């Protein structure tokens, strides 16, 4: 089973709504709660909210601000809560305290609620009143924090809301993204680009790679010999096709009425509207009679916008297939590279030398259709 990549998941648009949705208010009076304040403590000063009195059946831990101020707990009320308080009750002043009762009158080392004498407030002191607001004061949270999922008021929630907005990072090969790891040279419209040993590769922009037709034409003089173009095409479907116009192998996919690549006289046409279906294209020149050729001429690549790339076909005279150009589709950009590799042998050897091993061959020149 393939797990989906969470980074490619669609952006969550419901998070702001979840944070700001109106919550149904629960009536405050029957809510069971635990009072973290010692009942014998005097009422707090101005600006502080007195915790609610412990009520019967208290069993849960309420760390939220009470909905309405209630009077300070009277000793009688506190004593009344002793009978039914659970072991989690941190405020029970009763004498019959359990082992987890942290507020018993008999002070121990674990007593967190003993009020007198209170020399200094520690960060673990949950009940000792302090004149200043501290982060450990659970009874009166000073402001909405990033953990506050309730209705927020004012500008305090704005930064945390901003922090939740997903930021799309730039794809980078250094982080494993399938992109070019370098800044490619581009084709300048109106000025032919020559691919040679010093500048073997150039990349078309996404617009140049996706609009119109890419025309590849082999311009060869008569002195070269019987030089014919051929192309190996690897499609995104996994299909590998050999294109040879002179032998009727003219479309990729084979037999398609809407081909991605089409072989024409002395060249090829790439339908850039379907460029996403093209993965790799390699252009080669060969002699059908296996005769030695005086390599020369050039392969011209033209876009509909006027960009032009020339690849020389110059090598020492010899037999075999001259692989002139490879075209890679990297994320919608076509990367053109002058290969200039003369592969001895027939077309089958040239195909294997460039990784087109998905073809089954009838003979060294003809793949099984």
């Amino acid at each position, binding site marked *: 089973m*393939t797990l989906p*990549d969470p980074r490619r998941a669609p952006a969550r648009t419901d998070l702001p709504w979840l944070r700001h949705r109106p919550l149904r208010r629960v009536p405050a009076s029957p809510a069971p709660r635990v009072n973290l304040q010692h009942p014998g403590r005097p009422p707090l000063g101005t600006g502080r909210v007195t915790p609610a009195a412990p009520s019967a059946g208290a069993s849960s831990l309420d760390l939220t601000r009470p909905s309405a101020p209630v009077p300070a707990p009277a000793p009688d009320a506190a004593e009344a809560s002793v009978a039914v308080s659970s072991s989690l009750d941190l405020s029970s002043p009763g004498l019959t305290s359990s082992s987890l009762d942290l507020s018993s009158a008999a002070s121990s080392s674990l007593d967190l609620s003993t009020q007198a004498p209170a020399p200094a407030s520690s960060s673990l002191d949950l009940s000792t009143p302090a004149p200043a607001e501290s982060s450990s004061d659970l009874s009166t949270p000073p402001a909405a924090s990033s953990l506050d999922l309730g209705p927020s008021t004012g500008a305090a929630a704005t930064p945390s809301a901003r922090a939740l907005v997903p930021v799309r990072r730039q794809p980078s090969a250094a*982080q*494993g993204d399938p*992109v070019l*790891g370098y800044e490619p040279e581009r084709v300048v419209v109106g000025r032919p680009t020559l691919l040679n040993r010093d500048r073997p590769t150039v990349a078309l922009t996404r617009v140049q790679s996706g609009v119109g037709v890419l025309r590849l034409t082999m311009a060869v003089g008569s002195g070269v010999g019987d030089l014919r173009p051929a192309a190996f095409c690897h499609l995104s479907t996994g299909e590998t096709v050999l294109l040879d116009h002179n032998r009727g192998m003219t479309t990729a996919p084979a037999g398609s009425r809407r081909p991605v690549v089409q072989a024409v006289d002395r060249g090829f046409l790439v339908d850039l509207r379907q460029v996403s279906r093209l993965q790799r294209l390699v252009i080669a020149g060969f002699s059908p009679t296996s005769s030695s050729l005086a390599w020369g001429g050039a392969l011209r690549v033209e876009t509909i916008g006027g960009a032009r790339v020339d690849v020389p076909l110059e090598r020492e005279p010899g037999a075999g297939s001259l692989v002139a150009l490879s075209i*890679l589709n990297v994320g919608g950009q076509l*990367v053109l590279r002058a290969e200039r590799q003369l592969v001895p042998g027939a077309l089958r050897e040239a195909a294997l*030398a*460039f990784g087109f091993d998905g073809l089954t061959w009838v003979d060294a020149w003809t793949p099984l259709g």
Partner: protein
Amino acid sequence: MSWLARLRGDDEPDERDQAPEPDEDSPEALQAAVDELVRFVNARAGALPPAALANARALTDTLTEVVDSAQVRPLDVYAVISVRGVVGDYLPTTLKGYLALDPEVRDVPRAGGHSPTESLMMQIDSLQTSVQATLVATREQDADALMTQGRFLQTKFNRSDLDL
């Protein structure tokens, strides 16, 4: 041959029998190794992601640039070691390790959070960064050598500062 051996009439050793051993660190040998690496990459292009293939070929271009800089001045030992390591070990090992995987698991994230394809891209990028740094250092040495030559010529053919 010593003068005593000539007096005794000893035969001179045939120089053809003492053919120099091929220098594996010569620019020609390094370029041949880079070309062999290019053929290795091309022959496995069908099983590599297009982006990895493009970046691997860009890496071989950078290696060629480093070797070509030997036309200006000999490569220093660090550049030779860098080229030798990438060409003979690092990049082939990375590609072989990736190609040995079952294609179905190449895009499945591993325990580290990255899939093998992502790891392949990262490794090629690391190698590119390393070789690019070697190329920059080589070019800076060339620039320093050019500046030194300029100071030498200025001192040799201009008037000396001590002339009155």
